[in-house]
């Protein structure tokens, strides 16, 4: 530990840090510090993740037996709806951008804070307001429309708390918009001297692309939810054909946001993985520009493919073909990323720390998630597969296997920086492997179930499908253990963990050149960037020789 000060190439001070700068409740609730806001996001988002996880456990337990016995169908419908709503709107969408992005983005570009710190705090409060309203609705009895809110069920037939939950999502959307806006302005205006666009870490590029989607897509879901509310309350015919509307119009509007929202969830994950793979193989990322621009390409083309959720919905055959074609095109940038990550490993110096294990896990799971996306983009095949467990398995491979794994990798990677403590590497590795194994055991059988035709959102299913469902539930329990473990050992590390060095892995990124945890101002001296992204040699000013000699804690 004592060596760490000597080798920190730093712009940070060893004196106060952002955690010790004020300890009153007001100093947290009224802070403008992006790092404190990120920590508050971390706590809230984790709570929503745990709630969503409990719903998931209830779903898997119900599906252990073919009959609808543990939960009656009405309860089951609410459970899977609320699992979806909490996980998507209150966990997946804010997780990486609002926690890791919020904390790291200013550090990575050498800024003191985001460009609009008050707006950043406002977005947290909006998120809380939306979340509280949604929780209130869940306490009152919840909602049973499925997270997709398809009309006319949601507007005319459902007797659950559609309005309250809809309002919660509506409000929460503004949090996303403000975060996205803040990131874009920050990336444009707050970069440190010498931090040119092509010296930005790929994590920043990914967040730029994500922010574009947030700003351009989120208003549409807000409008759509508003239209549902108008139809429910004052009976203006918009989506319900009984009063002159069109139910398929809802699906167009909904998926115009909700398909790009998938990219809000996965792009930041790709950004994290680009960081992990390059840094833990100490190797310049292969094809930097291709990875950066493939993020932007995914963000833009992601807006043109929403109709692939509607192949059997009654939209025109012509539209189905166009959407299928564009879906195939948008698969290419993801393939490019996959190949570039693999090529980055070539001739690297690879270490197998916990974050890197998550990165490997991501590559394996996202490979399967992405390839099964091709199955679902191929329109003739999707007629059979849509609305079955094949779809469920596919998007869990992308969302959980991709985004959640990347999020966990990122949390472990930056944990020493965020908290100044090292977690137990032993338990970290165990949990990373449990998550990988448990995840595959949970969701791979669902591909097979889906091809056999097991429909989604079924509380009861035919008996011949039970074997694979038992596998899936067994896997879910392994996955559950793997996900609870980090909560335990990460919390434990806050008090008992070894003190983290400023730069435990001797990495070139600016976030590693300040103290751990960083001071409130991030950098005591304005950093000046003279090196390209992902250069691991001496030219970036790191004293590697000293680090090799020292007994610095390397996790």
């Amino acid at each position: 530990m004592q060596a760490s000060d000597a080798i920190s190439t730093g712009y940070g001070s060893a004196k106060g840090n952002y955690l010790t700068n004020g300890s009153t409740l007001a100093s947290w609730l009224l802070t403008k510090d992006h790092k404190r806001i990120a920590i508050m996001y971390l706590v809230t988002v984790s709570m929503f993740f745990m709630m969503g996880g409990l719903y998931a456990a209830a779903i898997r337990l119900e599906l252990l037996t073919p009959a609808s016995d543990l939960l009656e169908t009405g309860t089951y419908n609410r459970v899977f709806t609320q699992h979806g709503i909490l996980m998507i709107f209150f966990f997946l969408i804010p997780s990486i951008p609002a926690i890791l992005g919020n904390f790291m983005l200013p550090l990575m570009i050498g800024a003191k804070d985001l460009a609009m710190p008050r707006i950043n705090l406002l977005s947290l409060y909006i998120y809380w307001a939306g979340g509280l309203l949604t929780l209130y609705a869940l306490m009152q009895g919840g909602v049973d429309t499925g997270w997709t809110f398809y009309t006319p069920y949601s507007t005319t037939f459902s007797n659950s708390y559609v309005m309250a939950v809809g309002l919660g999502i509506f409000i929460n959307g503004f949090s996303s918009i403000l975060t996205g806006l803040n990131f874009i302005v920050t990336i444009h205006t707050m970069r440190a001297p010498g931090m040119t666009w092509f010296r930005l870490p790929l994590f920043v590029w990914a967040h730029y692309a994500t922010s574009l989607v947030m700003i351009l897509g989120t208003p549409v879901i807000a409008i759509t939810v508003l239209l549902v509310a108008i139809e429910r309350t004052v009976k203006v015919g918009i989506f319900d054909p009984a009063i002159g509307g069109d139910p398929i119009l809802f699906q167009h509007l909904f998926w115009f946001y909700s398909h790009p929202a998938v990219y809000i969830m996965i792009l930041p994950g790709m950004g994290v993985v680009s960081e992990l793979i390059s840094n833990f193989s100490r190797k310049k990322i292969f094809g930097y520009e291709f990875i950066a621009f493939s993020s932007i390409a995914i963000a833009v083309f992601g807006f043109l493919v929403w109709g692939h959720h509607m192949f059997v919905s009654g939209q025109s055959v012509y539209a189905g073909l166009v959407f299928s074609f564009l879906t195939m095109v948008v698969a290419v940038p993801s393939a490019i990323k996959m190949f570039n990550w693999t090529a980055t490993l070539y001739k690297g110096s690879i270490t197998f720390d916990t974050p890197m294990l998550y990165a490997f896990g991501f590559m394996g799971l996202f490979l399967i998630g992405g390839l099964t996306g091709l199955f679902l983009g191929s329109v003739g095949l999707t007629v059979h597969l849509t609305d079955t467990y094949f779809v469920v398995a596919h998007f869990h491979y992308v969302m959980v296997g991709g985004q959640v794994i990347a999020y966990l990798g990122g949390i472990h990677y930056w944990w020493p920086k965020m908290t100044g403590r090292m977690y137990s590497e032993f338990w970290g590795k165990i949990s990373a492997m449990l998550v990988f194994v448990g995840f595959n055991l949970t969701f791979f059988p669902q591909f097979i179930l889906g091809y056999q035709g097991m429909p989604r959102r079924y509380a009861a299913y035919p008996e011949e499908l039970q074997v694979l469902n038992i596998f899936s539930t067994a896997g879910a329990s392994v996955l559950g253990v793997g996900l609870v473990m980090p909560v335990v050992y990460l919390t434990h590390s806050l008090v008992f963990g070894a003190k983290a060095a400023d730069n435990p892995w001797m990495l070139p990124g600016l976030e590693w050149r300040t103290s751990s945890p960083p001071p409130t101002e991030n950098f005591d001296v304005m950093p000046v960037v003279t090196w390209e992204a992902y250069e691991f040699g001496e030219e970036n000013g790191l004293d590697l020789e000293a680090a090799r000699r020292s007994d610095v804690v390397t996790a």
Partner: protein
Amino acid sequence: MQNTSWVPFFPEQASTVAGMVDALYFYLILVSVAFSIPVVVGIFVFAIKYRAKEKFATPEEIHGSMVLESVWSFIPFVVSMTIFVGGALVYFYQYTMPENAMEIYVVGKQWMWKAQHGTGQREINELHIPVNTPIKLTMATEDVLHDFDIPAFRTKADVVPGRYTYLWFNATKPGKYHLYCAEYCGLNHSGMGGWVYVMERRDFDNWLAGNASGQTPVEIGKDLFEAKLSCASCHAGGPQQRGAKLEGLYGSTVKLVGGGTVTADDDYIRNSIINPAGQVVEGYQPIMPSFKGQVTEEQLTALVAYVKSLTPNAASAPAAPAASGGPAQMPAANAAAAPKGGK
């Protein structure tokens, strides 16, 4: 449903399209494996071969390679295009309605499927069909979205409120197959389903004979038209005729008030009963009252069947096309146009 497939956990192939879908599926599995092998092998080999031998090493820098990038952009693009074309061909086959198919009317409601055969037999949550015969379903829903799904046939289509959607298949193997509702429809969604019985022609004829047929859809429609709803008071021929002539209507092109034309298909007839002011035929006054709320979806299909029967060879008239979507006018457009016609 006994599983005769040689692959474990693989659904039975029981329609003409099933083989095509499965072929596409296996092609995609092949592509996935071919794509995964270089990536997975690459990850494992590199991870082992280039594991760190020295703390904080600085391996040589490689910036990238334009040639490699081009290759691994181009090849996935070409392969994805083959997948697209394959999918498009199967899709085209799945939703091109065959001519002279045997027609069955299906109405979905929370939470059951009601079917009525052209010969009058009714079933609930069951569907008896003859083998090796193209079957065309004309589907409507009383309430929310449903989806008629038979996995063994590898096809499905949403049933959308406010219009007709269509599904066709040609079963190739006698047996008993699952029927599901695949679009979430509320409380008892997972109970909305049953069985499809595919029978040899002779067994099917016996089944038809053994089930008291009652009235056929056309007869029910005729009864509604002439007696219960008194449509005939305006629409029957003669000097008193105030409503449009219906004989020979189906499949023809109708001129509308205010310009524009529309093909008189199932959806057009349905909409004209529910929302008569929406599309008024040229030369007539918009005086017909709406029958919305007075007729059920089942009665509507019967009325449509009756109006169709007024046109000889109606079955071979316009092949009702579109992805589970008929040649539908969008209901919203109707609603928007309604005030104009009504004034």
